């Protein structure tokens, strides 16, 4: 494994292909602060974060509430410009890309807003082709083919003609993912994608993401609260705490009792599952009242 790409200067905003072509996302000393004013000191939302993500990798961003997970995700999506350091996707500074170019490289899946007017599933997925046309655009046959493929990739081909508001939580999540795939991005970002799913839906979604990363060379970065699922399916963990990057590395390096316990302020034990992955559980007897 080669050394991480190190640019000559943190202020180089142009294309800067990484030394290792397998490295898709490189985040180096990236920080962000809200409401930076001349008078007051910047209020840091996220201290310097450094990590890399490669092709076919799933990276999970973990941390308690208000630890800076959403801010990091927005930095990765190029929606915020880092205060220091850089966030590069395929060698391009994410926040410097033109919005359409950015949408061709990075797809962000969030909890969707309520639809104002009814929409068919295929119409929704076709929206993912927007970055590839002129401002006022009509979808081509190729767009339809790619949208159909995206639906097939998430196992939702049969939902094509349904109305969006008729879908169950799990079905909707798959369709939203299909729209992101229709963008043909190299980086797929997901913000708590398992939030409204039952356990079966959660496992199914993460299996699918694993398959997409393995077979289609996507790099997937997921913000999640699901410690055990993250340990099971991800290659790398970025653990945030109090707006700082506490630790990043393989699940086995991050999932330690002395690390997770203080971060999540919970009595956690870590054990190794038969698959060789770490697993978190509440320490014995902590689920019951002591009285």
């Amino acid at each position: 494994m080669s050394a991480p790409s190190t640019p000559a200067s943190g202020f180089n905003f142009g294309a800067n292909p990484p030394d290792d072509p397998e490295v898709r996302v490189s985040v180096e000393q990236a920080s962000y602060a809200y409401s930076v004013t001349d008078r007051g000191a910047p209020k840091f939302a996220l201290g310097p974060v450094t990590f890399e993500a490669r092709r076919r990798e799933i990276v999970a961003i973990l941390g308690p509430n208000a630890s800076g997970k959403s801010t990091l995700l927005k930095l990765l999506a190029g929606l915020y410009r880092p205060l220091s350091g850089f966030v590069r996707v395929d060698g391009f500074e994410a926040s410097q890309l033109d919005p359409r170019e950015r949408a061709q490289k990075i797809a962000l899946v969030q909890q969707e807003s309520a639809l104002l007017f009814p929409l068919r599933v295929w119409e929704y997925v076709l929206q993912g082709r927007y970055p590839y046309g002129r401002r006022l655009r009509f979808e081509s046959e190729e767009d339809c083919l790619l949208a159909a493929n995206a639906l097939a990739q998430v196992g939702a081909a049969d939902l094509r003609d349904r109305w969006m508001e008729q879908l169950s939580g799990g079905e909707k999540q798959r369709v939203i993912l299909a729209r992101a795939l229709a963008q043909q991005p190299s980086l797929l970002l997901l913000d708590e994608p398992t939030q409204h799913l039952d356990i079966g839906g959660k496992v199914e979604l993460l299996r699918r993401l694993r398959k997409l990363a393995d077979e289609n060379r996507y790099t997937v970065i997921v913000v999640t609260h699901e410690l055990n699922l993250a340990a099971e399916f991800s290659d790398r963990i970025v653990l945030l705490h109090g707006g700082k990057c506490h630790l990043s590395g393989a699940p086995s390096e991050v999932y330690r009792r002395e690390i997770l316990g203080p971060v999540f302020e919970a009595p956690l034990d870590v054990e190794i599952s038969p698959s060789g992955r770490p697993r978190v559980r509440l320490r014995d007897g902590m689920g019951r009242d002591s009285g």
Partner: protein
Amino acid sequence: MQPLTPRRILGVCAILAGVLFLVVVLSLRLGAYPMSFRAIITTLYYGALGQTERIPTDFRLVIFGLRLPRIALGIAVGAALAVAGAGFQALLRNPLADPYVLGVSSGAALGAILSLVFAPHAVIAMQGAAFLGAAATIAAVYFLGRRGGQIESTTLLLSGIVAASFLSAIIMFLMTTLSGRDLRGMAFWLMGDLATPPQIPMGFLFVVTLAAVGAIYTTASDLNLILTGEQEARHLGVNVARVKLVVYLSASLLTGLAVSVSGAIGYVGLLVPHVIRMIFGSDYRILIPATALGGAIAIVLADTLARTIVAPTELPVGAMTALVGAPVFIYLLRRRVR
């Protein structure tokens, strides 16, 4: 999967243009001076060929002097108000948005009256002032309707209603300074009225209306995405701020222009986009042109009814649109609340 094609849009527009033509012919037929359909068609035919000497003088006066200018005004105003409504609905992410309900028409009317009071003879001052009044009102209603950084549907509508009543109070105050003869005309104009010929050339009215509708149309693909969520649209590469600015300025211009020539005709911007959505779907690439034609049809029909229903007396066209629009607004509001 059958995505929208330019061909389908043209087809829909051709059908609506056909309906508009029929409505126009019907409107030309009805009125105090009786004319047969045959006479109307012949008059229009010779008029189109420029052979006006072959048309009887009274026919020429009735058709080209009275009825057609009023219908043309109705077409421009209907298209402008309906597209402004569709634009405001996307801009504010609220299907109940309408220039009249949001108080934007009142803002435009106040602007127009202020220009009459302070610069009665300035060229297009009334249109400019009406545009500024509309733009200022929608900006005020937008900021009043926000709570915690989010636009809240009910707060927005209430802000619009309050803005409209506040602006109406100022208009009433200004009207007391006008003479008795102007007052009746002004009261009719405030209700929305097509009887008074506009002080600007009809060609100018049509060109500016077309330009503003065209400007909104260039953002149709972006509006489709903004309607599914602003955040999502941004992630998909839409320049949301630019789109909102284009729609804000164009819809305000359309409202200002329509109000300056015809007064505050209500509910067209609510009813027409709603009916078009039910028939042709909510894709803005088809909704904008279909709404423009639908608005023209609606106003020409409403005005025909307004001037024939209690003939020889005329009703203001705004009274007709409010008679239909207000109950539909209540129905839509209740359906949303449930």
